[in-house]
């Protein structure tokens, strides 16, 4: 996989660039001061974790329609990475909360959302590990991730309504609370892009690895290879 290696290198460089920007270009913000720099890790992490969730659901759907184990592999990998980024978002968020609100955890709506996201990821893993037959596992966990994606909107809409939020609105509705000067905004966007790229590279890597492992199993003397 030469081109994969190349894109790896590019991603790495971009990452270095962004980190540099975060630490040396972005000016400290009044109120948050130096700590604002966490935002550039926190937000991308949060976004990737949400995106991965959706992706994994999409692949789950593909699997259920075409019983090709390939798609389940993708769905599982996406979920795995999503879980990882979700943890990052939670931790960075928690730190951020400690800095800005003075408490690591106080069931702020956003925290609740991401926590439930964590639970959903965890649940789907518990489910996966409890099933041994490959097809069964693929089928059931696909169904589960679809079910959870159906429920997700309710979480996103309901929770903010029942808990007063201190949390600034995410960047998409770009009325970001902290007056974002262009440098910050661009850095943030760059960070998001890099994070996505990172996700993609990791994703490809893990898919390759699992595929190789499965093939190895198939070719081993006992097992499908017998065919």
């Amino acid at each position: 996989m030469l081109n994969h290696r190349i894109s790896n290198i590019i991603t790495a460089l971009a990452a270095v660039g962004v980190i540099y920007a975060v630490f040396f270009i972005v000016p400290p913000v009044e109120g948050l001061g130096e700590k604002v720099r966490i935002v550039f890790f926190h937000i991308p992490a949060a976004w990737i974790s949400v995106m991965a969730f959706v992706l994994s659901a999409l692949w789950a759907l593909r699997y259920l329609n075409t019983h090709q184990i390939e798609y389940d592999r993708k769905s599982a990998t996406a979920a795995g990475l999503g879980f990882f980024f979700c943890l990052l978002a939670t931790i960075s968020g928690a730190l951020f909360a400690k800095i800005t609100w003075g408490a690591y955890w106080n069931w702020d709506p956003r925290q609740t959302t991401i926590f439930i996201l964590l639970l959903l990821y965890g649940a789907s893993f518990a489910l996966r590990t409890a099933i041994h037959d490959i097809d069964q596992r693929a089928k059931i966990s696909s169904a589960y991730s679809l079910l959870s994606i159906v429920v997700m909107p309710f979480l996103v809409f309901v929770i903010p309504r029942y808990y007063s939020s201190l949390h600034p609105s995410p960047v998409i509705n770009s009325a970001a609370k902290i007056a974002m000067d262009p440098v910050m905004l661009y850095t943030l966007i760059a960070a998001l892009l890099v994070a996505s790229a990172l996700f993609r590279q990791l994703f490809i890597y893990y898919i390759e690895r699992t595929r190789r492992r499965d093939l190895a199993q198939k070719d081993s003397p006992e097992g499908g290879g017998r065919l």
Partner: protein
Amino acid sequence: MEHSVTVELVDVTKYYENKCLFRNISKKLLPGECLTVTGPNGSGKSTLLKIISGLVKTSSGKINLRCNANRLISPCERAKYIGFVSPELVFYKSLTGYENIDFIAKASGMAALPEFIMASLQRVGLSGQAHEPVINYSTGMRQRLKFALLLVLNPPLWLLDEPSSNLDTAGKKLVADLIHKALTRSTSIILATNEAEEANYAHQKINLA
């Protein structure tokens, strides 16, 4: 019987992670024919029947069930065309024999008249215990109940896995009669058995080494 079923096995192969049961079995079974599957214990007879019933997936190859020799039967409607007598078929212990049959028939999408159910229970010699909970049935009576169910559902394809196990001589005879009658009514029968004499109904044979 409204329609008849043709069964096509196309290169059916099944292996479990650690062993290969059978490979590339191809057969075509016409209505009114009987296919017997023989082989030692653990050779894959029941697995083959479960594959045909759609409860187990093939590793490769596929099964085509055709209604009246042309239309393909989809997985979800299979239930209506298949009757399965198997040691793994278990009834609801707290329900009576009658209730079990009534329920399963309804669940599979057909309502049977009470007297019809009673008649088939009578036929297999359970009329006396029709209203006892199945938990009180003896093993042979449970086996007979499976045939009562088969008579009620009256499907065009019978899958019989060790049909005469646990049965007394009268019971074995009953099963033989039922099979003969069914064949004359152009039912397709697939029969997995360890008994030599049962293999005699066969128009076609599969022997799993």
